[in-house]
């Protein structure tokens, strides 16, 4: 394990591996919480049945004011994530095999479960969904933020952008539901990994075997 472990908080217990650095954890939660705020306020504007979310968050005019500003934070988080994880998130042949065997993974069929490196094919798919989703949301969102600057003859652009914003948001919500479910329920100790930064060796062996072999020096 890293020799600097003594200087960081949440020093690993014996037999633990560092999965996320402090920097990565701050970046993850910055992106996650800004997304969650935009999700909650956005859903309030999306459906009358969820409008109560805006009341919970300080009222609808307040939500309308902060939604795009916090969204800029989410975009910064996305770029920050990209700068840290771009290489780890590149799709490889291993990931394509993982995606082919998703069913075995979903049904907890250990025998046929696919292997993965630091991130598995599904995580990478989610990453790219959020990455491109963020830019679609930014592009369309700018039009929704300042609609008064769009000349009347281009009013139809506004309608298209609202539609695009909703479709992109729904796509990211689909990924987000699965992401939260897996992190909180389906893969125990994922939450400790992304909060403390450490996982047990057995966890790494089980869920990210190729990464485990690499960081423990058993395989290049």
């Amino acid at each position, binding site marked *: 394990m890293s020799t600097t472990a003594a200087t960081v908080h949440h020093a690993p217990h014996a037999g633990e591996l560092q999965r996320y650095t402090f920097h990565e954890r701050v970046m993850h939660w910055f992106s996650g919480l800004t997304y969650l705020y935009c999700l909650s306020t956005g859903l309030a504007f999306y459906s009358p049945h969820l*409008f109560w979310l805006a009341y919970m968050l300080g009222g609808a005019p307040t939500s309308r004011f902060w939604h795009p500003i916090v969204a800029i934070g989410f975009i910064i988080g996305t770029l920050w994530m990209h700068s840290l994880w771009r290489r780890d998130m590149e799709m490889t042949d291993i990931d394509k095999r993982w995606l082919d065997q998703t069913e075995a993974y979903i049904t907890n069929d250990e025998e046929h479960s696919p292997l993965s490196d630091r991130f598995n094919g599904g995580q990478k798919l989610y990453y790219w969904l959020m990455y491109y989703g963020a830019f679609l949301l930014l592009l369309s969102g700018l039009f929704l933020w300042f609609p008064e600057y769009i000349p009347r003859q281009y009013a139809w652009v506004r309608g298209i952008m609202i539609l695009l914003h909703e479709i992109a948001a729904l796509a990211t919500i689909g990924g987000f539901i699965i992401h939260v479910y897996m992190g909180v329920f389906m893969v125990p100790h994922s939450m400790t990994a992304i909060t403390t930064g450490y996982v047990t060796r057995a966890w790494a062996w089980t869920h990210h075997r190729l990464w485990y072999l690499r960081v423990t020096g058993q395989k290049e």
Partner: protein
Amino acid sequence: MANGPLQIKAISGHAGTVPGKNTSRDYDVCKLIDVTTCIGCKACEVACLEWNGYPFRETVFDNTYQTMPDTAWNYYNLIRFNEFTDENGNFSWLMRKDQCMHCADPGCLRACPSDGAIVQYTNGIVDFQQDYCIGCQYCVTGCPFNIPKFNPTTKKVHKCTLCSDRVGAGLEPACIKACPTGCLHFGTKDDMKDLAETRAAQLREHTSHKDAGVYDPPGVSGTHVIYVLHDINHPERYGGLPKDPHVPWMVRIWKGPLKWVGNFAMAAGIIGVAAHYLRFGPKEVEPEPAPKAGVK
């Protein structure tokens, strides 16, 4: 007539019940604008400002008699001037009083996400409630007539109220009261429709305006402001009155099918992951094999 308390018929962004839905205790109100007798005096513009308590604002001269290029958040009502020459070289001034049309199927209300920011009364008036407005301007996107206007200081959107405060008290709108030529009328929708059709027939039979007709566009299920035009086939000549206005398709898709597809997908996603947990449960950690000698 259309007096008595205002009963709400539709509410924007509203998930619950609507008190006056499908009730008809009262007649629909309607403003009739006979553009053929408008003299462009702008008394209605002044009356509108006075009743609504807005200051007179600077005018913008653009080589016509028009006060300014467009209505504004504090200028609901504008006479649009168009100098029109027909194919025979005959010149005419087309003047049209432009304000909210109070559509029976209001695109602004459909598009609005904020609970109670836009209401439609059973008498047909569509009214903005600025207290609940969040300034998103979706109503501007939903309106086929370019009526709602944004106040950048307060972040609220405003438009003609058809003087709902006066109508609710049994009075006619301020513009009607100010009109000196009788070009403006106010009453029930049926009566105004009758009057308009009579006037249009009179124009067709006794003048050279053989195409005179009544503008009450069916694309928005009719409006509570109707026009008598010299030429019903070319409403766009009157300062851009749309020929076949309807709630934009984008708004109808995003407030209609997309909403249901999205709601269904989100609910299915949450139910799906819950079902997955119950069926397959969490992934258990397998014990790590003993590390090979020599590696940490």
